[in-house]
């Protein structure tokens, strides 16, 4: 790791009465330590990567507390680790990005939930639903229901987060059930404060009161007949205990308001957004005091029938604010009301969208529609309508002024990224063997499915590209290419993809883009990272492949576009069957720059010789066709107005942020593009030889150019 988290770790060390100030996800991390966890495991992904990063760096602190931390190979590994709480009174937490991570983890989760726990088992889920999310839009709620794990969706407030994490462990222990807590991306990145408590050491660890007797109980094994007993235990014991705990500890919050004929039930995570909409309509004050009563469900599964009934009874209409589909909560509340014969009208997805993120504007519009439909006493509906009309008018006016669609700006490879040249080569190589089906994967490599490469036909999950290839390959006239990152390779690609391909003798091509980190989630170390954690042994991708019996392996420096193109051609056309693997190697440029930049600055300061490289385009020879950009897409390779008075099309241009990775020149050569590219190498702190040679060159060139003669004449 090139980054230091010393500041964050200092926050985690805070004691009783100190005020924590920082991001939500860090507050959550601190809460785990305050709750006395024995172990934490997980797999990185937005928005919970930060928890993994900071704890990975906090070895001393964790050792002091007797907490075991593990960066698991994948989410299934993290979930399996929670098995420690099945037999022993150990509190533990696993963390990952949902729902994709929950999918990977679900085998272990089902077993865990069936066996039940003695120690509190908490699963912290980073929810990345909606605008800007990079994953499929599904609800964690369904997992909670089908495996019977309790699901908390806390109201966004640091103090509430911390308190509920403590309660979640107690709930888990009281009901022998693992508990899931979902935190939305904005809440994880929310800046706030809370008053700390001291961290609690782990109940048992090698250092303090180690366990000596393994608790061997067949009743905890997920095999018959235990599983039948476990299933009964779930409904007969665990659920009632959970309901009782939730009710007696008041985990959900009821906020009464002046109006008694309507009400709002919401997922805790949406509380602030609903309050903001109410404020907008003049129905709540800045401190959240609302005219309309609110039932804030910090626990969204299970629901407390009594609580729901008590809230709804006597109200004409209740709005259910529930993000995502299916509308599990609305259906559940509806059924509760029906059974209790309460005739309150329940409105949810009728006025709010079934799919998509509940942004402030979405909630505002839904709320106004609800108010207009329910016609509550004493609320000025005309004013509410006016609010929306003003919003629409302003948007219309803006559209008029701004005009048609603006160019979209999705994320892409960073400046100097070593993955970009791999896709330049893939695009060029298609000129040799024609278009091919490309099985894409999760990670930074997924950006290649966007402009300018459009390289990728399917994405089936993290590390699944190769596994998704054989049936397609069978139907095609030529081989299929699968691409995966080194992160995906270790996460699932090796076991699911490579071993399957070798076993089935699949004739296929796999490109592993090895940049040394899990980069899309923020450069976490993976087994093959050279800057691995705590001196862990570095695993070799080649050795892993060889040991599985892969015979055709080529390692290519990723920036060498020409060689990569030739190697791809070879892999696609060789008569040899079986799996052919090309490893494209080049360090993540973000990580590299984090290391190189300060080092270069130090050298410059110390007066040492430094050669700085920057690419450039000669505007006078660039004809503005932009083929170079279609093979690169580097942020620093851009366009500018054509300085030529006769030309109209913008010319290519390299901005100052160029890190001199060399792709521009390589592509110009490999594609035979255009002679406009040049590489400028500036020698800082030059030696006597550098200076002498430069002087000689300049003088000679000046003289040959005739500039010297002109000067003399002048």
């Amino acid at each position, binding site marked *: 790791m090139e980054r230091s988290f010393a500041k964050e770790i200092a926050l985690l060390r805070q004691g009783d009465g100190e005020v924590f100030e920082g991001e939500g996800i860090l507050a959550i991390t601190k809460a785990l330590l305050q709750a006395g966890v024995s172990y934490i495991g997980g797999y990185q992904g937005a928005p919970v990567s930060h928890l993994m990063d900071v704890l990975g760096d906090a070895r001393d602190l964790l050792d002091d507390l007797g907490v075991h931390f593990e960066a698991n190979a994948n989410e299934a590994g993290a979930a399996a680790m929670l098995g420690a709480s099945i037999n022993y009174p150990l509190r533990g937490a696993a963390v990952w990005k949902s729902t994709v991570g929950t999918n990977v983890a679900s085998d272990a989760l089902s077993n865990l939930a069936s066996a039940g726990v003695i120690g509190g088992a908490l699963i912290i889920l980073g929810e990345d639903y909606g605008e*800007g999310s*990079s994953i499929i839009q599904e609800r964690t709620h369904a997992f909670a229901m089908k495996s019977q794990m309790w699901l908390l969706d806390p109201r*966004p407030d640091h103090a509430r987060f911390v308190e509920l994490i403590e309660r979640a462990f107690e709930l888990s222990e009281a009901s022998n059930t693992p508990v899931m807590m979902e935190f939305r*991306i*904005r*809440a994880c*990145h*929310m*800046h706030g404060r809370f008053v700390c408590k001291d961290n609690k050491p782990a109940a048992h660890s090698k250092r303090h009161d180690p366990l000596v007797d393994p608790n061997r109980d067949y009743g905890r094994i997920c095999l018959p007949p235990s599983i039948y007993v476990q299933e009964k235990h779930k409904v007969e014991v665990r659920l009632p205990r959970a309901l009782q705990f939730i009710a007696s500890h008041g985990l959900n919050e009821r906020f009464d308001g*002046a109006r008694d004929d309507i009400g709002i039930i919401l997922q805790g995570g949406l*509380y*602030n*957004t609903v309050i903001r909409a109410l*404020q*907008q309509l*003049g*129905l*709540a004050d*800045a401190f*959240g005091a609302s005219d309309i009563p609110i039932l804030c469900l910090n626990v969204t599964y299970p629901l407390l029938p009594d609580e729901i009934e008590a809230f709804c009874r006597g109200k004409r209409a209740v709005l259910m604010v529930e993000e995502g589909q299916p509308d599990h909560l609305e259906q559940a509340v509806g059924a509760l009301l029906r059974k209790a014969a309460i005739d309150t009208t329940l409105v949810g997805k009728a006025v709010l969208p079934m799919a998509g993120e509940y*942004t*402030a*504007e979405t909630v505002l519009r839904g709320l106004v529609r609800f108010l207009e439909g329910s016609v509550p006493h004493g609320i000025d509906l005309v004013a509410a309508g006016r609010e929306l009309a003003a919003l629409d008018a302003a948007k219309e006016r*803006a559209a008029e*002024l*701004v*005009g048609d669609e*603006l*160019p979209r700006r999705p*994320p*892409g490879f*960073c400046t100097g990224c070593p993955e970009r040249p791999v896709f330049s080569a893939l695009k060029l190589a298609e*000129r040799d063997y024609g278009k091919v089906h490309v099985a894409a994967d999760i990670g930074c490599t997924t950006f290649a499915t966007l402009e*300018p490469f459009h390289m990728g036909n399917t994405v089936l999950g993290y590390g699944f590209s190769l596994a998704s290839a054989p049936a397609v390959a069978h139907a095609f006239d030529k081989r299929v290419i699968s691409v995966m990152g080194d992160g995906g390779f270790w996460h699932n690609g090796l076991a699911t993809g490579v071993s399957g391909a070798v076993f089935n003798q699949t004739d296929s091509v796999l490109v592993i883009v090895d940049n040394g980190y899990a980069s*899309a989630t923020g450069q976490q170390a993976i087994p093959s990272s050279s800057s691995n954690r705590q001196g862990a042994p570095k695993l070799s991708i080649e050795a892993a492949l060889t040991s599985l019996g892969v015979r055709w392996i080529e390692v290519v420096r990723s920036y060498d576009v020409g060689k990569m193109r030739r190697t791809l051609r070879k892999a696609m056309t060789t008569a040899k069957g079986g799996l052919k693997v090309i490893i494209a190697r080049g360090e993540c440029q973000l990580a590299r720059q984090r290391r190189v930049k300060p080092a270069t600055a130090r050298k410059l300061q110390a007066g040492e010789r430094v050669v700085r490289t920057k690419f*450039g385009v000669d505007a006078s*020879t660039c004809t503005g066709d*932009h*083929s170079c*950009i279609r093979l690169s897409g580097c*942020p620093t390779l*851009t*366009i500018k107005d054509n300085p030529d008075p*006769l030309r*109209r*099309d913008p010319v290519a241009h*390299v901005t100052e942020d160029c890190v001199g990775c060399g792709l521009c020149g390589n592509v110009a*050569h490999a594609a035979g593009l*255009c*002679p406009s*590219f040049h*590489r*400028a190498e*500036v*020698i800082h702190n030059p030696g006597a030889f*550098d200076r002498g040679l*430069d002087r000689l060159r300049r003088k*000679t*060139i000046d003289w040959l*150019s005739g500039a010297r003669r002109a000067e003399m004449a002048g």
Partner: protein
Amino acid sequence: MTNTSPKPLSILIAALGGEGGGVLTDWLVAAAHHAGLPAQSTSIPGVAQRTGATTYYVEIFPVPIAELGTRRPVLGLYPVAGAIDLMVASELVEAGRAMRNGFVSPERTTLIASTHRVYATIEKMAMGDERADAARLRKAAASLPKRAILFDAKADAETRRLQLNAVLLGTIAGSGVLPLPLSAFEQAIREAGKAVDGNLAGFAHGLRVARGEVSLPPDEPSVMPTVPPAFVDAAQAFPAEVVEIVAHGLARLIDYQDADYARLYVQRLQPLSQAAPAVLTEAARQLALWMSYEDVIRVADLKSRPERLAQVRAEARAGDLPIRVVDYLKPGIDEVASVLPAALGRPLLAWGERRDLLDRGVPLRINAASITGFVLLRVLARLKAVRRRSLRFIAEQQAIEQWLAAISQASRTSVALAGAIAMLPGLRKGYGDTQRRGRRSYELLMERVVMPALRPGADGEAAARRLVEGYKAALADPEGQRLNQLVAAEMARDMAAE
């Protein structure tokens, strides 16, 4: 109604990944805390940080915590359309996006935006010019908000060696929208502890911008080239609006070849001098560009000029330091053949085509700042003396004559058609494969659309529309698929008509 309490101030920051929007947000929150006000920020970085567009959202409550007792405001996590007090955009299209999403209200919002463009990949990768309409966006940004502070923060930051986010923070402070003293902002920068002096300088500059104390540099006036004395009369014979283009064309062709070649340019234009001004202007522009087509000789000449090395030095910020300039040249067989005399070039080209070797070339890396590299380039440039006998020169002149004749003929029947033909050489650009593809598209449209349209009785207006459509299709994708589809569809239609 209970809503008599003060409302939080809402600040939305739209930025691109890697621009320091997160740090800017942290400074704002810290400044609010220094002023004793409750504040909350959030963001959705995710993978958007990888060069994509992203937003940061901050709310500041204008009543000090000290006066609130145990009460705390509930602050939002989402910006609300129509309810933003301060919209900050680090780039022009992002300002446009904010406006389209309703985050800039005429009644409430102060918009601080940098007017520079960072082009999106889909704008950059176009084969022609498909950039968003910046002038329109600037106008919108100036007229829609309650108050607008618009300036090229990027250029400001770059020329003054300041950080963009620090400049924006200064502008935010100077706008006076937030109830925070300047000292709170400065304290936030100091406490963050990174590049403190530089960021304070950036902050101070932004402050001056917001207060209107920085005068913007004037636009550079366009330079009209001086027409060489020998050509003054000939140039003046053209309508006033064409003279500037002609002057540029003359200067270019004298530089490219010699005065005789420039004379040929004027002679070629003269038959068109009665054509519609728009047609003549476009023809004059395209003719000058076409006659100065890029061959190895031209490229070597341009790359070995003193002003070119000076330009490279300036762009690389090399100052007076020693520099190496590595040029990536890869002359292919057709490029070599094209500068050879026709008798030699033609068989070489035919051989290359037969062997399918046109894509191949000799990759060269020439240090243009070295003596050997420079001499090599100059020797190539001197081949100018024999250019007139080269294979490509002869071929280009023939094609030019054919094109000029087509414009002349079309301008008698349809101005639209003449105009469309005049712009057609715009497809012939680039090098190597790009150049071959452009030439193919050009020839296809000449043969399929232009030639039939010049036959007596043809519908010139319809042909003009088809030609413009074909031109756009040729620029739609680099493989020429769209153009091929279009031509195939036309053929099918023609056959059905027959």
